[in-house]
């Protein structure tokens, strides 16, 4: 564990892998040290956001180093008792052929691998309602597009690195697009507003 300073507003905790991020996140969420106002997980880091007026970064760092991570075997995460969200996808993405080439699979093989994987929302970011999904047994690492698109439509389903994700709304983006869904991922009227929250499990279904 490396604890990297972010002035008086945060500590960026660097960990070995996503499982370690999840375990520390779960432990700190269950018992946050005083002055901590948010926890922001990412691929290899957990940001511990501090209230500059009430927190003492040194004391929080001691607390973070002392905490016993909540390991939840088998890649499961806090909230893994959450129901599986099923997302029907029409696999007609503009980059499907390129993804097939990059992975050495056929296009049908990409679809079979994507629908055959149980995905979990590892962390959020990029836009409200966007979840970075990791798959148990998903072993592909797909580079981003060399040239990001200026417009990716709402509902586009993509791959980048070891992650899959669904664009909650139209935005620029560099992920390789393999399909699209009509499932709504974000609504401020809904409670909770995001369909995909850290810990939620996801299964993609092939729509026709």
């Amino acid at each position: 564990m490396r604890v990297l300073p972010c002035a008086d507003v945060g500590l960026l905790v660097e960990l070995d892998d996503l499982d370690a991020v999840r375990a520390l996140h779960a432990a700190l969420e269950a018992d946050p040290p005083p002055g901590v106002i948010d926890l922001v997980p990412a691929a290899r880091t957990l940001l511990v956001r501090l209230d500059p007026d009430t927190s003492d970064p040194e004391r929080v760092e001691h607390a973070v180093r002392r905490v016993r991570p909540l390991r939840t075997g088998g890649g499961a995460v806090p909230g893994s008792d959450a129901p599986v969200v099923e997302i029907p996808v029409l696999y007609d993405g503009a980059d499907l052929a390129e993804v097939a080439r990059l992975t050495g699979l056929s296009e049908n093989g990409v679809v079979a691998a994507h629908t055959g994987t149980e995905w979990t929302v590892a962390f959020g970011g990029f836009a409200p309602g966007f979840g970075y999904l990791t798959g148990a047994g998903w072993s592909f690492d797909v580079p981003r597009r060399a040239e990001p698109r200026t417009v990716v439509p709402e509902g586009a389903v993509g791959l980048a690195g070891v992650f899959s994700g669904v664009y909650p709304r139209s935005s620029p983006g560099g992920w390789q697009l393999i399909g699209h869904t009509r499932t709504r991922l974000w609504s401020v009227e809904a409670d909770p507003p995001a369909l995909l929250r850290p810990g939620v499990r996801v299964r993609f279904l092939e729509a026709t």
Partner: protein
Amino acid sequence: MTGTGGGASNAANESARAAGTGPVPAPGLEIVSPGPSATVQDLGRPGWAGIGVGASGAADRGALRLANRLLGNAENDAAVEVTLGGFTAWACRDLVVAVTGAPCPVTIGHRGGAVNTVLRLRAGERLRLGTPARGLRSYVAVRGGLAVSRVLGSASTDVLSGLGPDPLRAGTVLDVGPAPGPLPSIGFAPVPLPEPDELVLRAVPGPRADWFEPDALETLLTRPYMVSAESNRVGIRLDGPELTRASADELPSEAMVPGALQVPPSSRPTLFLADHPVTGGYPVIAVVVAADVDRAAQARPGMRLRFTHAPPR
């Protein structure tokens, strides 16, 4: 945003309007001209980063808090964040207001007003903010607070994610809540003027300072940078000496903080403000301390910025 309710609360609204106070929100300010940009802001919506939602909130949090304190409001009450003045609003009823942040000429009807004081606005009078000679963002708070519908617990407009109320336009009517307890006895708060030409901000080495050439941090902490015109509530783009990275490795996306100096492939830093992205994929070389992020939010395009190493607390 206009308050509507059943018959009983309509009657309450009527009496609230007559008295300038009352138990329920009622129309208070109608925007005549928002100026270059005006939004509603409170202290934001921290705690939602896990679903990709940033904290947002007033860019100069201290100025918003001061405006609310002058009026006896809660510090987190919503107010108008005015960018570079040019703002005019009409009072739907008698109001008590305060203007803080960038000190701009204030007029109420034909009378002059002062920033950082308690001002009384009678029904039908216009409140005008001229262009500030220094600073960028002024705050117009109303006693009782703006009663604007909240998204995830906050009335703030986040220009990056598009959450919260739309930016203010001519004709927008803002409801104002019931007056809190008595007005504080202090009706004036002395505040240092924003710097006119050069702003010095305290910073500490950031989480990825070691991703840069050894002299990059020294360059940042000794050479001046210029606030570019491509700056907004998301961040301040800086022109100046390049900060060269030691390696071209790709940084896995990681969480960002307000005050972070993130260095994109242009090698020139962006200083993140209230509406910064939740995560970013470029290294952060240094972070400006929280108190100075408020001052940074008052930096105007063309202004010089210098960074100085903050002593440990």
